[in-house]
């Protein structure tokens, strides 16, 4: 089975702190708050927070 290389693969249904160029995940957690706390300790800059959607679902305007 072919597998695409994507740094988000280990983080399905998690919130992550990701670098702007999508090259690195610096923290992950079950909530935005948890990720923010971890990022604060790391003192990382130039990062953004992202929710990694379930891999087996297409996106509709309503998604849990």
């Amino acid at each position, binding site marked *: 089975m072919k597998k695409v290389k994507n740094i988000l693969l280990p983080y399905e249904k998690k919130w992550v702190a990701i670098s702007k160029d999508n090259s690195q995940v610096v923290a992950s957690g079950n909530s935005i708050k948890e990720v*923010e706390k971890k990022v604060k300790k790391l003192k990382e800059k130039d990062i953004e927070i992202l929710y990694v959607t379930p*891999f087996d679902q297409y996106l509709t*305007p*309503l*998604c849990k």
Partner: protein
Amino acid sequence: MKKQYSYTPIPFFDPKTGEIKEIYRPYIPVRIVYRHKMVKIPVRCLLDSGVDRNLFPALWGENIGIPIKKGESFLTQGIGGIGIKVYRHPISILVGTDIKFTTEADFCYDHNIPLLGRFGFFNHFQKITFDEEEKIVELIRS
């Protein structure tokens, strides 16, 4: 004023082939502001031209002190007729460091993906273009 953002590649499982592939989605990193309190780290929100209003996870709003359940509540409906309860609040949205506008957002405890909608985000820009070949979204503000 123009801002460009590259699409974000998100893994998804293709049931036909059994492979993990990537789908590229147009996310915009934004910060929300409520009564002078601002989210520190931008959150990538999906730019969704099919959504009427901004829809954000409630816990994101609670992080900056928005009293979510004190907002006016509505039932919003998506594809499949699924209705969810949302609470509406006035906020400001910050895109980068130089675009800021006052708007509204609906907050929901049953929804995780922040969505930027036509009323509340799109209508604050002159033009928004989706370049599918380059996988870039461009925001233009006059």
